[in-house]
């Protein structure tokens, strides 16, 4: 990447992070902020969308059963995905196997994918704290303006609405940019810093994500109903995979 391209990429990461943070809860909720599309959009911004499919694929499986309703504790998988994927790509990560999720079966070469999965999970937990803080701020703003709101001052309501949207976008943009910067800087020396045992552990992690997603959905929908459907469709998938191979 040239200097200008790099600056455009950083700007793009902040913009995508901001827009997807809005989409996550505050505006529209189109699911473009889910990890798979978020990773692809982050990859587009840094010019490597096909490579971004791999970490997005596994992160999506990890959060497939998360239930973001009502007062459920919300984590920040969106900023985590955008930041980690963009940071790794800017830092020089090139996926083996041409960007296929089957990289998990390529032995130790899969460790950078496992590392990204761990980083995304940790960053998502950390980002969830920020979301909780923002929600507490909403309550504080409401209480501060409560009398005016109760008296029918809809200008104040509109102002709080706009303020909340701006804060959500700023949080998402800043968080994505921060995560991307840390990951990009760390990526250049992580190859030497991660010991062999660490690489072996990380290389195995993508293989945990697929059964995790299967069991999560089975648990959500009830095992007695889910297991027969899963037995048939896993069998079909195995047959299709072997036949096409």
């Amino acid at each position, binding site marked *: 990447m040239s200097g200008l391209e790099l600056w455009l990429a950083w700007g793009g990461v902040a913009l995508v992070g901001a827009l997807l943070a809005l989409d996550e*809860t*505050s*505006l529209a909720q189109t*699911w*473009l902020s889910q990890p*798979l599309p978020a990773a*692809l959009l982050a990859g587009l911004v840094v010019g490597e*969308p*096909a490579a971004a*499919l791999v970490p997005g*694929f596994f992160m*999506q499986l990890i*959060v*497939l*059963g998360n239930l973001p*309703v009502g007062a459920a504790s919300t984590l920040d998988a969106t900023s985590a995905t955008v930041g980690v994927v963009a940071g790794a790509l800017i830092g020089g990560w090139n996926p083996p196997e041409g960007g296929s*999720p*089957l990289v*998990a*079966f390529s*032995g130790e070469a*899969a460790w950078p994918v496992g590392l990204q999965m*761990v980083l995304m999970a*940790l960053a998502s*937990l950390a980002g969830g704290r920020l979301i909780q803080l923002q*929600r*507490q701020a*909403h*309550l504080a703003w*409401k209480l501060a303006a409560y009398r005016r*709101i109760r008296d*029918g001052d*809809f200008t104040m*309501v*509109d102002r709080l*609405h706009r303020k909340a949207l701006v804060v959500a976008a700023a949080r998402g943009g800043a968080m994505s940019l921060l995560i991307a910067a840390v990951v990009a800087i760390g990526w250049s020396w992580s190859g030497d810093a991660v010991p062999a*045992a660490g690489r072996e*552990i990380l290389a*195995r992690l993508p*293989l945990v994500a*697929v*059964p*995790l*997603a299967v*069991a*999560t*959905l089975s*648990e*959500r*929908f009830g095992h007695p109903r889910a297991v027969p459907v*899963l*037995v*048939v*469709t*896993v069998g*079909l*998938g*195995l047959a*299709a*995979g072997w036949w096409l191979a």
Partner: protein
Amino acid sequence: MVARVSGGGDRTRTLSRSTRRRIWWRCLGLQATWNNQRMQNLGLLAVLSPWVRGRGLDADRRRRLARRHVVYFNTNPYLAGYVVGGLLRLEDDRREGDDVPEALVTGFRDSLSRACGAIGDELFWLALRPMVLTLALVAGWLVAWPLALVVVGLFAGAELWLRWRGLWLAYRLGPDVVDVLARPGWYRAVAWARRLALGLTGFLAGYYFAGGLGGAGAPPVGQLVALVVIGLGIPIITRQRRAGETQFLVGVLIVAGSVLLF
């Protein structure tokens, strides 16, 4: 079960297209000011704001409206148009002098928001979300990565349209909109979306392992079985009380312990 509210009033009353567009846009941001105390109550007031301006309510009516709706409010955002449309219709009927007691307005709001919350959470979060995203995973991996964005984009278009239609339909029908939400099609959609989500996830898992097992760097069968057992076991043991990220990190610790010990 949806609490049925009687009466629909004059069906020729309408929202102007520009007011409806503004309300729809605000409906998209219903959760922007979500708070732990009363959840979407500020969001509801923000949604009502374009209507307040459009109807030119005086200060006294604005105050009474705000006090009526600044209470606890929570519903599913994708079906919020049904609640808001019906609510605005009742508020309009009330403003025009129809016999619509305040208790009817608040009772309608509370019962419909709960019903939409229950149906919407089952349909969108529990069933459609895993279905659409697993379809995007399959399409993005097995066909081409842009197709994953197309799948999610199609869902986005459909949900934006549903919000627009819900708002229009609920305003037209008023309290009778409960009949729309009581239709069995919603529950059939939940059941089918769940089956499809499970089926697609199962197919993806089977195809994934079939495609990878022949790879030169594939782990030994015993190790692979152990990894699958870890992945399958964590959600069953935690019984969904933890987010996927936390479950995965527990898996990381178990894998790390196993590698270091054995």
